[in-house]
């Protein structure tokens, strides 16, 4: 109370202070009541979830008086003096379903009464102290001090190098420098001539001129755009987990947009606006801008529609990608580590939820070419046909259903008018068994009173006859039918009367047939004459329908059918009257287009299915037509913005507090107002991000740019600038760059140049960086002269393409090993930076893949053409691959390499040690009498059609796995191995015969030195045929002979031995036992794989060199 005494003495405000003190000081009675009744309840039943240091559910803290009065997300916990209006009391009374506290065991009535008494007394509370902050409140408080949320302070340095605090260091030599700039900015090395020209330019502006040239090079956008695509988690498909086509057919338009944006040096703030809200900007001048919105929509999806997980992915890429904030964590609860609330998350969620993808994305402008015209023509035709097939098939299907009118009448009666939904047995026993449509049945039952009973002129006879009961049905029905036939009172439609005139139904089933027949013959037959022509005429697609998704087009087709149905009458008014009943509103047999589809009424005849499938295929295949329009993956605002709530634990079924569309609370100062009520708020969101006052956006991008240049960022966690992210190694440097960047029009190119012109960039000890996949592959293709340099366009499979790597199809579902082995980031996530592992799979690709060997071949061929002389050619090779002259040592090494090239080296020497043939095995002598080679090789097997002794044709075959023997032992199939060395061998093999219907085989291994080594029989079984420690000398022959056992079809066998010589090494691989593998070694000995020439090998070796594969 010392503070109070002070005030009393000095200010003389005795009265006021006294009153305050009196209000604070509790009577002994109140204190006692609180301590004995209320505090125990709070401590035992409430603190667990509502106190500092424990859970803080709903932001409510009940451990101080201040906390109780402030309350939580839903407002103050109590109103002193008014228990009835106090949330706390309502909650403990469990008076509503939404608010029941404590949630598990309700308080006792006595405890509740005590709390009520307490509140009504004014909630006297002796507890003092400030309300502690909840965790998230504390985070928001801490954020005020966190470096990344302060505006950058620009120290305006004399030079960037001074700021970077670099010790003076030598600058790199000019060749290194130009290679560095080329690989960095355009992702390819310079040519030798470019290096020379640069070296010759002694002007002080030489490097600056070079930088300007490279920044103006279109390859710059391909290289730097790809950096951005890592952030944007770019891929060409959804990675959908369900079967079927999950391609994003137009993702590439976003990729092209990014490339162009970098080439045009689009200001980064504008770049952000376009990617989030191009639809709300003026894009008339450059419609490609719309494609920028692919940024929002091209993430991982489970299926084509946008669901909450897709939106979560979008929020993540906006948060981490643009601002270095991990907003996604707040989906289920306030961020546990960062100043991001659930409300923030759902504010952004609501912005995205208020946006949608239009059914037909806008087409991007296209030149009028013969291809586009051809596409337009074909598209029109295919869609017209699509509409026709679907409309006709729908009518055919409905006609089949209507012609079972009687069956449906009967089904309704037999099911006692229960709809299928009421009892599964009805469906099972009646609808399914009779192959009726459950939808039509359900509608029949539901509309019975109105439709059936309402059309007595048609259904009167049914209603009367079905009332008769089974007993004496025929007798009772006969007079009735006669009277229907006479139709004296003209109550029946003439055709109905006609149908009953001669009828003598024995059961109600017979009556049903009369109705089946009535419809089919009296209505459908006539109608069939009328509808085809008008429908056919109506099938041409409208302008809009030329671009509609097929599911929409299908609806249009059926709508056309329905229109034609209703617009065309039968010529006789009488006939038409009967027909009208079936197509009127409320008829169980008339389906609006969407109902038709959801009821699955198409006939399932195979022919019909096939027709529809083909029509669909014809339209879909046109998407790949070269003249097909490219489209932008845009978003547009919903007509009415979504007003949502935060979901408790991320579950849409448990909405919590309101989450208005607005910007993040921690950055409230940037954009304090909630977003407009009549729009999604996407543009406002984009503006809040691309904002000079946003302390994160510029910092995040300059840090990325720094990383893309140096391979090391200033902030080690480029997508996380929050509390848990790394601190900048030099905040003055980061801040200066951010401020400089904004002052210079958010220009990435200017920033590139600013950095490149520093000594930090040009110095000699620049960190080595391995080339990423794109510059490596592009460089290989470029120096070998294979690279196709077109800009833009549809993606191509990387293994089959010689375009730049940025145009490769990025497959989220199965990223090819080339991407994976080069640490290409998983396209499922926005990637902060790339990994750098040097593992064997990449080396295997470099050694063995066609990318490398084909490039080596092309390079060698072009060298051979241009430079005939070996010595000069070596110089030229170094110039092309490494942009320098070889040293004398290197030239000598290359000459030595070429000279030591073995003249007759085979790619796969082991394959030469095998032969494939047939021959006659003499079982008595246990010797092979003759061996003849099988000469015909079809790519998979050696085979021949031969003749048995008695002239029967008989095929003999040997393939990689096994083969087929001929019909007789004279035509045994033989796999022959000829030992190229002396030694002791082990043979491992398994003989498998699978076809029990055939006779089975007998297999033998026969050595030219030692005779038969083993004999095995197999019929529908597997048999081990291993042999150990067989001595051989060079030139010895081992025959693996398989014979028929009985002169009949022996059946196919598998027998592919492996041979190991433990005492000998693989050539070139000491310590690895020499081996042959019948499967791996199998090839056409007359067409051995063509080995690389000496020059081709040398070219590949240069492409493998470290100097080529790293940026110095």
């Amino acid at each position, binding site marked *: 109370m010392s503070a109070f005494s002070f005030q009393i003495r000095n200010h003389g405000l005795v009265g006021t202070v006294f009153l305050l003190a009196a209000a604070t000081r509790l009577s002994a009675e109140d204190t006692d009541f609180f301590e004995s009744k209320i505090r125990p309840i709070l401590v035992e039943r409430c603190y667990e979830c509502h106190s500092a240091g424990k859970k803080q559910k709903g932001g409510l803290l009940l451990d101080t008086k201040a906390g109780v009065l402030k309350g939580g997300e839903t407002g103050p916990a109590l109103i002193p003096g008014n228990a009835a209006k106090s949330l706390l009391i309502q909650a403990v009374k469990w008076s509503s379903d939404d608010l029941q506290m404590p949630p598990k065991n309700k308080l006792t009535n006595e405890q509740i009464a005590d709390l009520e008494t307490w509140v009504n007394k004014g909630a006297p509370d002796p507890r003092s102290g400030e309300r502690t902050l909840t965790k998230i409140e504390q985070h928001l408080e801490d954020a005020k001090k966190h470096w990344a949320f302060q505006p950058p302070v620009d120290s305006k340095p004399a030079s960037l190098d001074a700021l970077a605090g*670099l010790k003076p260091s030598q600058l790199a030599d000019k060749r290194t420098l130009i290679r560095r700039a080329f690989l960095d900015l355009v992702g390819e090395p310079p040519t030798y001539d470019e290096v020379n020209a640069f070296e010759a330019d002694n002007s002080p502006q030489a490097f600056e001129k070079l930088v300007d040239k490279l920044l103006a090079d279109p390859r710059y956008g391909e290289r730097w755009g790809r950096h951005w695509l890592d952030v944007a988690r770019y891929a060409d498909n959804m990675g959908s987990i369900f079967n079927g086509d999950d391609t994003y057919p137009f993702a590439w338009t976003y990729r092209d947009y990014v490339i162009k944006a970098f080439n045009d040096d689009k200001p980064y703030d504008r770049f952000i606006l376009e990617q989030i809200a191009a639809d709300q900007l003026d894009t008339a001048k450059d419609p490609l801008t719309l494609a920028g919105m692919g940024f929002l929509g091209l993430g991982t999806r489970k299926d084509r529609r946008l669901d909450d997980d897709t939106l979560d992915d979008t929020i993540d890429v906006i948060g981490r990608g643009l601002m270095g904030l991990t907003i996604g964590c707040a989906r289920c609860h306030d961020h546990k580590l960062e100043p991001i609330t659930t409300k923030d998350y759902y504010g952004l969620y609501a912005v995205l939820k208020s946006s949608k993808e239009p059914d037909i994305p806008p087409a991007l402008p296209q030149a009028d070419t013969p291809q586009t015209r051809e596409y337009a023509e074909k598209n029109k035709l295919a869609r017209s046909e699509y509409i026709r097939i679907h409309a006709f098939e729908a009518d055919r299907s409905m006609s089949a259903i209507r012609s079972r009118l009687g069956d449906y009448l009967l089904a309704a009666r037999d099911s006692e008018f229960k709809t299928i939904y009421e009892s599964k047995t009805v469906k099972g026993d009646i609808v399914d068994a009779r192959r009726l449509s459950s939808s039509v049945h359900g509608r029949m039952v539901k509309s019975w009173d109105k439709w059936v009973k309402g059309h007595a002129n048609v259904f009167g006879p049914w209603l009367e006859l079905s009332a008769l009961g089974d007993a004496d049905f025929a007798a009772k029905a006969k007079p009735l039918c006669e009277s229907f036939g006479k139709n004296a009172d003209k109550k029946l439609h003439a055709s109905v009367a006609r149908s009953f005139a001669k009828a003598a139904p024995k059961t109600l089933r017979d009556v049903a047939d009369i109705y089946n027949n009535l419809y089919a013959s009296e209505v459908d037959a006539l109608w069939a004459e009328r509808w085809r022509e008008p429908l056919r005429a109506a099938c041409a697609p409208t302008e809009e329908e030329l671009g509609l998704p097929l599911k929409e087009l299908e609806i249009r087709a059926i709508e056309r059918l329905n229109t034609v149905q209703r617009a065309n009458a039968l010529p006789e008014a009488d006939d038409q009257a009967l027909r009208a009943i079936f197509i009127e509103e409320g008829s169980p047999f008339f389906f609006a287009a969407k109902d038709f589809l959801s009821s699955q009424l198409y006939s399932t005849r195979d022919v019909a299915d096939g027709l529809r499938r083909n029509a669909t295929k014809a339209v879909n295949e046109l998407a790949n037509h070269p003249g097909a329009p490219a489209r932008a993956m845009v978003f547009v605002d919903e007509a009415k913005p979504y007003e949502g709530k935060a979901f408790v634990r991320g579950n849409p079924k448990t909405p919590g507090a309101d989450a208005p569309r607005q910007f993040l609370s921690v950055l409230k100062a940037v954009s304090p107002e909630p977003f407009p009520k009549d729009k999604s708020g996407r543009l406002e969101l984009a503006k809040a991000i691309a904002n000079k006052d946003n302390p994160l956006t510029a910092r995040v991008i300059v840090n990325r740019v720094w990383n893309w240049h140096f391979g090391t960022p200033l902030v080690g966690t480029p997508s996380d600038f929050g509390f848990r992210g790394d601190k900048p190694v030099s905040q003055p440097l980061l801040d200066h760059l951010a401020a400089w960047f904004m002052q210079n029009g958010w220009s990435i190119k200017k920033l590139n140049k600013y950095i490149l012109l520093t000594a930090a960039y040009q110095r000699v000890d620049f960190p080595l960086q391995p080339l990423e996949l794109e510059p490596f592959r592009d460089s290989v293709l470029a120096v070998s002269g294979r690279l196709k340099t077109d800009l833009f366009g549809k993606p191509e499979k990387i293994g089959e393409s010689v375009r730049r790597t940025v145009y490769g199809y990025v497959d989220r579902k199965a990223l090819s090993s080339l991407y994976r082995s080069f640490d290409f980031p998983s396209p499922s996530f926005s990637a902060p930076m790339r990994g750098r592992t040097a593992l064997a799979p990449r080396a295997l690709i470099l050694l063995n893949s066609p990318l490398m060997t084909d490039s080596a071949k092309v390079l060698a061929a072009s060298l051979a053409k241009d430079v005939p002389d070996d010595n000069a050619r070596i110089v030229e090779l170094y110039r092309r691959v490494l942009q320098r002259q070889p040293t004398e040592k290197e030239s000598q090494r290359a000459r030595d390499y070429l000279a030591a090239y073995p003249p007759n080296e085979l790619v796969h020497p082991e394959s030469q040690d095998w032969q494939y043939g047939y021959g006659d095995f003499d079982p008595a002598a246990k010797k092979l009498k003759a061996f003849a080679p099988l000469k015909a090789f079809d790519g998979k097997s050696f085979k021949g059609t031969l003749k048995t002794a008695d002239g029967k044709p008989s095929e003999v075959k040997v393939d990689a796995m096994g083969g087929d023997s001929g019909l007789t032992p004279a035509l045994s199939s033989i796999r022959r191995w000829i030992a190229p060395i002396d030694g002791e061998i082990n043979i491992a093999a398994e003989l498998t015969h699978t076809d029990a219907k055939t006779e089975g085989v007998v297999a033998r291994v026969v050595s030219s030195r030692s005779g038969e080594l083993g004999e095995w029989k197999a019929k529908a079984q597997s048999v081990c045929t291993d042999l150990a420690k067989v001595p051989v000398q060079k030139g010895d022959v081992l025959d693996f002979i398989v014979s028929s056992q009985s002169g009949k079809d022996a059946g196919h066998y598998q027998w592919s031995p492996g041979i190991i010589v433990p005492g000998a090494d693989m050539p070139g691989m000491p310590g690895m036992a020499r081996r042959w593998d019948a*499967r791996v070694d199998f090839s056409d000995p007359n067409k051995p794989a063509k080995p690389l020439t000496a020059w081709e090998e040398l070219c590949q070796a240069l492409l493998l060199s470290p100097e080529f594969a790293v940026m110095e």
Partner: protein
Amino acid sequence: MKNSLCCRNHPVSTRRDFLGRCGMGMGALGLAALMRDAGLSAADAPESPLAARKPHFAPKATRVIHIFCEGGPSQVDTFDPKPTLEKFHARLVDDVMKNYQKTAGEAASGMGRLSGKLQRSAFKFSKHGQSGLEISELFPKLSAHADELCVVRSMHTTTSVHEPAQLVMNTGEFASVRPSMGAWTVYGLGSENRNLPGFVSLSPSGTTSSGDKQWGNAFLPSWCGGTGIPTRDPAVTKMIENIRSGTTSLREQRRQLDLMHAMHEDFAQKHPGDALLEGRVSAFETAFRMQIEATDAFDLTREPAHIRALYGDTEQGRQLLLARRLVERGVRFVQVYHNGWDTHDLNDERHRELTTACDQPLHALLTDLKQRDMLKDTLILWGGEFGRTPTSDNNDVAKKKGIGRDHNAGGFTVWMAGGGVKAGSVYGGTDEFGALAAENPVDVHDLHATILHLLGFDHERLTYRYAGRDYRLTDVAGRVVKGVLA
């Protein structure tokens, strides 16, 4: 400042950084101890993120073979006998199990379609081994190993659609892309063979209907991800991409490498001690030897005849023998896919075929691992993404061909063997019909937590920082099922 420009401490490029991000790295063990134990010094560390590491505590299992019965085996026909089904055979489910789903609680929501008629098992169950474990006649050979098996009969999962349920079994999650169990294992334990991937997935086609996400690394470093190997063609050149050159002999490749090394020597003089360059050299040498060594690992004809005969020359036999050869060579996690368990029609006939295909190979695997003394620290997991209903699936195809069973996410069986599980035991149970997990239910996160426990990890501490959060295989759930531990 100099450091920021020069340092090559890329987040996933060096072992030191890697361990820094690794939730297990800095715990009780400490970085230095960890590196020492793994026989690594900081100097040779940077380029070997795959190197073997020790987990949080002494592991019971150091490698895993996961046999994934894709499609969902029927528990009531295999390891979960239900005599009650005899009693109510062919009765309508609605009559017998009135209000069943309501009382069955949450599990029912993901169960699938329990409709139609109850369907007894066509297969006889009997007790096996000293444990008296009940196994149906479909597994005559495997039954001999009853005393090794630990059968969990009370599994349940969150969805009854194949692909998502498979993702749940493999990654714990289907709505988002997450690292698979094998990737987490390699991330935590590294690998014992640098010439082979740490995680290999064997399946006939080398992929799944939902792509390689089933064994993907998601946001974990790329070396954690599984390598999908198609086993349909047993030639090793078909199984492993780029494993052999089509244009250069090994001898000539050796010369190319030697030339490259000479160039490296020159170049390295300019950049002395650069780890990046050295790592490159060793990667090439490894790759060169892999061409034969991997061939060896994948070439089953190198296996003695009686072992090959034991497994049998069938798809499952070959895959399981391959799995054994791989774990034997230090591959940490091997997945073997056995496709075709989605028996909507002809349930009995197809279960007969499927079990005929795998009974002998499973028997072989257990026998073989045991005789090599590897069963004690190899964990085998057998099971599908969910189970099947105890009722008949009366779809149109089944009507024509023969009765099948539908998907059942509410209750199913997996079994484990080896690696520290309680041998010869049954854990948990389904209700009397075999429909829903009833006694001691185990969800997939629990199974994952238990497997990580056996591998020596506290599943709550095996974490990876990504996008502002520490992620783990078990997300925010999972408890170790103590009852299955030995």
